[in-house]
Structure formats: structure tokens, C-alpha cells
């Protein structure tokens, strides 16, 4: 546990120092998105990586958090700091209610159900125009502020978002090493066996689903208050799939995997921008190669790759 804590502190320090290295405002903005995506990927990883339950609708929870925060502050004039937990609580309740019937399903059926859920939420954003502004979006969302400090620049927002992201990392570290984490892994491996050792699998799955949705909602609120403008396009099915890709590429069931996945998938399009029309080809090829040669994800991939190379050199060494 001590080593884990040191690792976390090093990671936190790294996150704090990165903005100093890059003066350019644009890059900071991208790194801010890495923070938001890290939160989302960690949330999905709790569900998918630990409990083994897939969700193709997590962008919906992200969007709900953003819209609830936006509507409460813009239309009803709430303080953003109040709107955020209120949104999270509402989304948590909704996910809990939906979770009970949905999580009885397994495998492809669960994927279908969560996919439907995400799409319905997306349609609601588009169609309830008087509430959400519809496809043209909702603007004029207030920035968060503490006293006289308003989070109105990319740099300030970077630290704000990463503060929350680091808390999420710490939280998931805690869950992973707890009795709950063990129980989740047990459900993932064999639900029947988990139940006969006394894990209330049905309830625990719903709880983790709701928890995951709450984290997504918080990330959504942060997104809304940082960008001050939101539109349904950011919360569609594509984004749910992108989140799933982040978790898988990063490494299922690990604490830092989701961060690596989020960082890679957020930064890669920016880096490839120079390749003009070929960027999407390179992007796809890289993902395919990664899945082929690092099936355990980035977080386990590098040590694994090194071992394989060493084996090839050593010739007869056994794994």
C-alpha cells in the first residue's frame, strides 16, 4: 500500500508540473480533456474492468451531468457548486433505478440495453428544446469559482479538472485494494461462486453501476463549467465507444490503465493532425497493432513486450 501511495504522489506531481513545460494555451486545453476523459475512463473501468459488466451508454451519464449542471445554473440560477452534487445525486439515482432491470442481463444483451439507454438519453437532449436548447446547444454556463478566484482560463481549469481526476484515481485505488474490489473481481470471474461465498452480486453490480454513473456525471458537470457551452454532439454513441476503447487500450482492471488510454486517445488525434487526410488511417492502424501486440493494454503491454523480446534473444528461456 505504501508503494501505491508513492506511485500516486509521483503521478500527482507529474500532473502538477506538466503545464510548466508547455507554455502554449492550446496544449493545456487538450490536457484538460485528458483529465476529464481519465475520470470517465476510470468510472467505466470500475464497471467493466473490475465487475466485468459492459456499458455502451456511459456518454449518456456524462451528458446528463453536463446538462443538469448547465440547466440548473443557467435557467434556475443555482450556484455551480450546488448544481454539481445535485446533478450527481440525480444521475446516481437514475442509474440505480435503471441498473436493477438492466444488470440482470449479461453479455451482448447488456451491451444492447446500455446502448439503447445511451441513445435514448441522447435523443432527449436533442428533442427537449425548451429545456436543453436542442441541437444548437446550451450556452452561457457559469465558470466555477472559489471566493474571488474564478476558473476562467485553460490553465486554471486544468488544475481544477485534474484535482477531481486525481481524487478519482485515489478513490479507484482504494476500491481496487478493498474487500469490495475483491468482490467485484469475483463477480467478474464467476457470478455463481461469488454468490455462494455471500457476495450479493445483484445489488453490488447495481451499486457499482450507480457509482460509475456518478463519477461520469461529475466529469460532465466539470466539462460544462469549463467549456461554458455544451451540445448533444459531445454525448453521442461514438463517445461511449471511444470511452470503451480508452479502457481496453489502457488496460482493463488496472488503476493507471484508464489514464494511459485516455491520454493516448485524446492526444493521438492532435499529434496526427499533421498527417492530413491519413490521420484516421494511422489512428486505426495503431489501435489494431496495440490490441494485437498488447492484449493486456498499455499498462501491462510494455513490460510484456520487453519480456517477449528478451525471450526471443535468450532463445531457450521459458516463460
Amino acid at each position, binding site marked *: 500500500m505504501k508503494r501505491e501511495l508513492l506511485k500516486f504522489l509521483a503521478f500527482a506531481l507529474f500532473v502538477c508540473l506538466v503545464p510548466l513545460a508547455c507554455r502554449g494555451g492550446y496544449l493545456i486545453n487538450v490536457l484538460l480533456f485528458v483529465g476529464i476523459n481519465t475520470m470517465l475512463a476510470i468510472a467505466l473501468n470500475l464497471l467493466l474492468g473490475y465487475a466485468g459488466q459492459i456499458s455502451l451508454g456511459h456518454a449518456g451519464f456524462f451528458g446528463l451531468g453536463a446538462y443538469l449542471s448547465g440547466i440548473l445554473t443557467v435557467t434556475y440560477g443555482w450556484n455551480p457548486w450546488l448544481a454539481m452534487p445535485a446533478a450527481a445525486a440525480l444521475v446516481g439515482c437514475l442509474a440505480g433505478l435503471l441498473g436493477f432491470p438492466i444488470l440482470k442481463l449479461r453479455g451482448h444483451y447488456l451491451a444492447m440495453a446500455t446502448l439503447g439507454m445511451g441513445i435514448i438519453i441522447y435523443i432527449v437532449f436533442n428533442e427537449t428544446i425548451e429545456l436543453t436548447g436542442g441541437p444548437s446547444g446550451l450556452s452561457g454556463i457559469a465558470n466555477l469559482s472559489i471566493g474571488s478566484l474564478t476558473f476562467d482560463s485553460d490553465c486554471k481549469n486544468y488544475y481544477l479538472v485534474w484535482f477531481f481526476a486525481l481524487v478519482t484515481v485515489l478513490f479507484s485505488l482504494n476500491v481496487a485494494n478493498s474487500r469490495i474490489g*475483491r468482490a467485484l473481481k469475483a463477480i467478474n470471474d464467476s457470478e455463481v461462486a461469488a454468490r455462494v461465498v455471500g*457476495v*450479493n452480486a445483484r445489488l453490488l453490480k447495481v451499486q457499482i453501476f450507480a457509482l460509475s454513473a456518478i463519477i461520469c456525471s461529475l466529469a460532465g458537470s466539470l466539462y460544462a463549467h469549463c467549456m461554458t457551452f455544451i451540445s448533444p454532439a459531445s454525448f453521442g454513441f461514438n463517445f461511449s465507444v471511444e470511452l470503451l476503447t480508452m479502457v481496453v487500450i489502457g488496460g482493463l482492471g488496472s488503476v493507471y490503465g484508464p489514464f494511459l488510454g485516455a491520454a493516448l486517445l485524446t492526444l493521438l488525434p492532435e499529434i496526427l493532425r499533421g498527417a492530413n487526410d491519413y490521420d484516421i488511417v494511422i489512428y486505426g492502424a495503431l489501435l489494431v497493432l496495440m490490441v494485437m501486440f498488447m492484449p493486456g493494454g498499455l499498462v501491462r503491454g510494455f513490460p510484456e513486450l520487453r519480456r517477449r523480446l528478451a525471450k526471443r534473444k535468450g532463445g531457450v528461456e521459458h516463460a
Partner: protein
Amino acid sequence: MLRVENVNTYYGKVRALKDVSLHLGEGEIVALIGANGAGKTTMLNTICGVTPAAAGEILFRGEPVCALLPDRIVKLGISQVPEGRQVFKPLSVEDNLELGAYLRYRGGEGKKAIHNDMKQVFTLFPRLEERREQLAGTMSGGEQQMLAIGRAMMAKPKLLLLDEPSMGLAPLVVQEIFRVLERLRGETGMTILLVEQNAKAALKLADRGYVLETGKVVLEGPADELIENAVVKSAYLGKSKN
């Protein structure tokens, strides 16, 4: 200790248990034998709430447990060692054992008591202690069976349900496991319901036995009588040539 009365269990429309009744006294070892598909595993799953009974009554120490969820039943003191071991393969031996004590952590029992019980499991199965950091999925079948039993022990059950502990294991390992079960009963007074296809070994260990056939109890009695019974002999023990 345990009284099962006229239990019926269905899978969809298929009736897997037909008015099954059985009982276990305190500290008894009872064997449940029968061919494939006779309903042995269903019986165990019905007792521990995984496939609840549609009709009938199950009393555990006088308390009805028929309508309870599996975790409540574990809490009352019934643990199952499921068929095919079902250890949590990607977790370490130690984590598997700790999962066995899952409900006790929540019950506010000290880590110390749980740790002591883990030590007890290790004295019963020294091989597990040697491998406590190892991932369960990388161990041999016999070791996984030991782990599955150890995991069930960690819940501090009063009644242990074992589903074919000898499945797919070498005869020597089976002997070792059966010896441990006997020792368990001797040392802790554990009550054991043992489901087995290996009828001979099971009846040798057990005090009494039940024979299930297509969901019905067709025979019951003291184990040594069942072993001598002509029907059992021909159906489950293999005929002797003379």
C-alpha cells in the same frame, strides 16, 4: 440441523426436484449419490438459494431459509463448495480465502479473527500456505479443490455443502481431500452434505446416504447398508464379476 421437506425446483418448465425430503443431524456426514442429471447439484443450489425452490420447505436450525437470498443463507451458516471448484482464477490464493470471509468483514468482525481462521485453513492444507501469493488459476486441480474448501471454511459455516469434490482428480488426491473432511468433522464438529458420483468413496466416509434418481429420492439409509444394497451396487458401485 437441516430439514428439507417436499422440495420442488424447476428450470423453466422442467421439474428437476420432485418432492425431495432429507434431513441432516448435527455433526453428521451425509452423502447424496446418483447418476448424471439426477438433481444432486440442483439440491445443493436449492439449499443455498441459488436456484430457489418453487414449493416445499427448508429449515436450517429451525429457521425457514427457503425464500432467502444466497448471501443471507451464507450468513446463517451454510457454505457451498461448488461443482468444478469455481475458485476465482485471476485472484491470489489469499484473496480467494479473504473473499470467503466477505460477509464477516461487513459484520464488523476483526481482521484478527479472520486471520486466525486463515491460519487454520493453512494447517489443514499446508500446500495452500506455500502458494498464498500464487494465482488460483495456475494451481493444479487438487490444489484448487483444497482452495475451494478453504474458501468455504472462511465463512465459518455450520453446514458445509460439497459438490463433487473428487471430480477430475487423481485417486491419491481424492483420498487426501476425504481425509481432510473427516478430520474437519472430528475437530470442529462440522456437518457435511456431500454430493458425489464416486459413490463408494462417499459412502465410506458418510454416516448416512440418499440415492437420487431423476429428481426423486429412491433410497435412503445408513451408509454401510447402502454400500451393501444390491440396487446401489449394480447401479452406482460397479458390479463385481463373481
